[in-house]
């Protein structure tokens, strides 16, 4: 039954090397390129490092206020202006109803591209930012480019749900939502997934959630409580407070 049920599926490999200090990038896994999108919530404590190594930095509207206001206290710097001048986003995108006028003026004067999409009220600011990256990335590059998003979790629940929906709407992209406490990614059911765990910065707590639809069959390895063709749905079993055991956890969804 198992042999027939599992078709030969492509494997998607995931790792969070972007969380490591640059010097510790392991030789065998190529350092991933990533774009950074900053939404309008308190910056996570590791933001300076994420910012420095990003290929592209986009603030979604009020995310620019957060960089302007909060970056300084996350660095060890003494000079407020120097910090402010160092962390300049390439793009500020959105409907511009949250960014403060003085913040917009400052970044504009420092060379940030201000992409005013206020005429478009159909999509969220995150959607606009991800759309832009999606449009300007070739299919080949999409498999190598990670998009890290800060400020997408917590806060208003409808915002969080809309942000999670972005993972589904752009499931051909590797988008990671990060907070101070955790990160989340979508594991599309079309693939098997290999997740490399950076145990110095990740874990041990983990989970798998069938958000949006029940899962008929999930099988994992590398967890303390592995699943074996398990059915998961809200209202029944979902995998929370699990623990990663190995350095690599493997999971895939069947039909």
């Amino acid at each position, binding site marked *: 039954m198992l042999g027939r049920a599992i078709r030969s599926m492509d494997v998607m490999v995931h790792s969070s090397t972007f969380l490591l200090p640059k010097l510790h990038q392991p030789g065998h896994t190529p350092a991933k390129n990533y774009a950074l999108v900053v939404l309008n919530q308190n910056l996570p404590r590791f933001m300076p490092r994420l910012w420095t190594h990003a290929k592209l930095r986009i603030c979604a509207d009020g995310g620019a206020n957060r960089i302007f206001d909060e970056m300084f206290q996350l660095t060890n710097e003494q000079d407020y202006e120097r910090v402010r001048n160092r962390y300049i986003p390439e793009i500020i995108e959105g409907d511009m109803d949250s960014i403060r006028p003085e913040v917009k003026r400052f970044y504009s004067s420092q060379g940030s591209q201000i992409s005013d999409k206020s005429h478009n009220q159909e999509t*969220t600011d995150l959607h606009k930012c991800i759309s832009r990256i999606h449009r300007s990335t070739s299919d080949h590059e999409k498999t190598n480019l990670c998009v890290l998003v800060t400020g997408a*979790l*917590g*806060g*208003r*629940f*409808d*915002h969080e*749900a*809309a942000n*999670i*929906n972005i993972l*589904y*709407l752009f*499931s051909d992209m590797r988008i990671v939502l990060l*907070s101070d*406490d*955790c990160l*989340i990614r979508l594991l599309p059911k079309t693939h098997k997934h290999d997740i490399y765990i950076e145990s110095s910065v990740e874990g041990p*707590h*983990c*989970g798998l*959630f*069938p*958000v*949006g*639809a*029940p899962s008929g069959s999930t099988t994992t390895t590398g967890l303390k409580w592995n699943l074996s063709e398990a059915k998961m*749905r*809200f*209202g029944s079993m*979902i*995998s*929370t*407070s*699990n623990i990663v055991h190995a350095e690599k956890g493997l999971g895939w969804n069947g039909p």
Partner: protein
Amino acid sequence: MAPTPPVRPVMSHSSAFLLPSPPSSSAAPDGDGDAYALLVLNQRLPRFAPLLWDRARVRVCADGGANRLFDDMPELLPGQDPDEVRRRYKPDVIKGDLDSIRPEVKEYYSNMGTQIVDESHDQDTTDLHKCITFVTEKLAIPNRSNLCILVLGALGGRFDHEMGNINVLHLFPTNRIILLSDDCLIFLLPRTHTHNIHIESIEGPHCGLIPIGAPSTTTTTTGLRWNLGKPPTSSIQYQQQLVLNLQILSPDDTSMSFGGLISTSNIVEEESVTINSDSDLIWTISLRHHS
């Protein structure tokens, strides 16, 4: 002619417990209409925690929620003596696997008479699940099955905790469990009922309907800026339709799913919102940040 489909029972919801002054009339004859249990999980207390605490019928801390009560309540009442605040804001029960509560906090509340229930033998259910079971099954208060359960600290933080807490809403669909944060509240709208949500002044305007567990093929709403489903031709006709459960759920009503449309950043436009769906939905509404 097809037999009349069964009438959908109506579930009414209101967040009057959040109002600064309690509502003047109580719905139930025994005065229990507004009774609620308050559960505190292990995250920073929201700013309205003192108000909710004062009016609760019973107060339970889930493990490290006791730390939060001990540390944060005096901060929320800055004009008052911290020791006096801690004495006054004492939980009835502290429950869970007790691996987060600080020893001195446990001792403090134990000495004050709080019941400490050690559930560390049970690793299969979350702390919230244990507390809900406790409130619904074991509490010695009248009408406990009608009791609303308000939960602080269930949203944000570790995502697997949040998902586990949302799953508890689905595991107890007939209980009224509301998860609250500084920014919003959420509760489950089980698909078995028509829902009538009374909007209080302290709520809104931003709201949403989230099909988190499964897609919804047909959802109909009223009272929102962007309503879902076919608009009623008149309110009298709509009331008739609700009673007879006819014509509400038809194939061209708006479907919702992750990967497709979900209702977020919607706006409440009327004092009462009604929702009918073929799938369980999470309702969420923002809370106003008053001065």
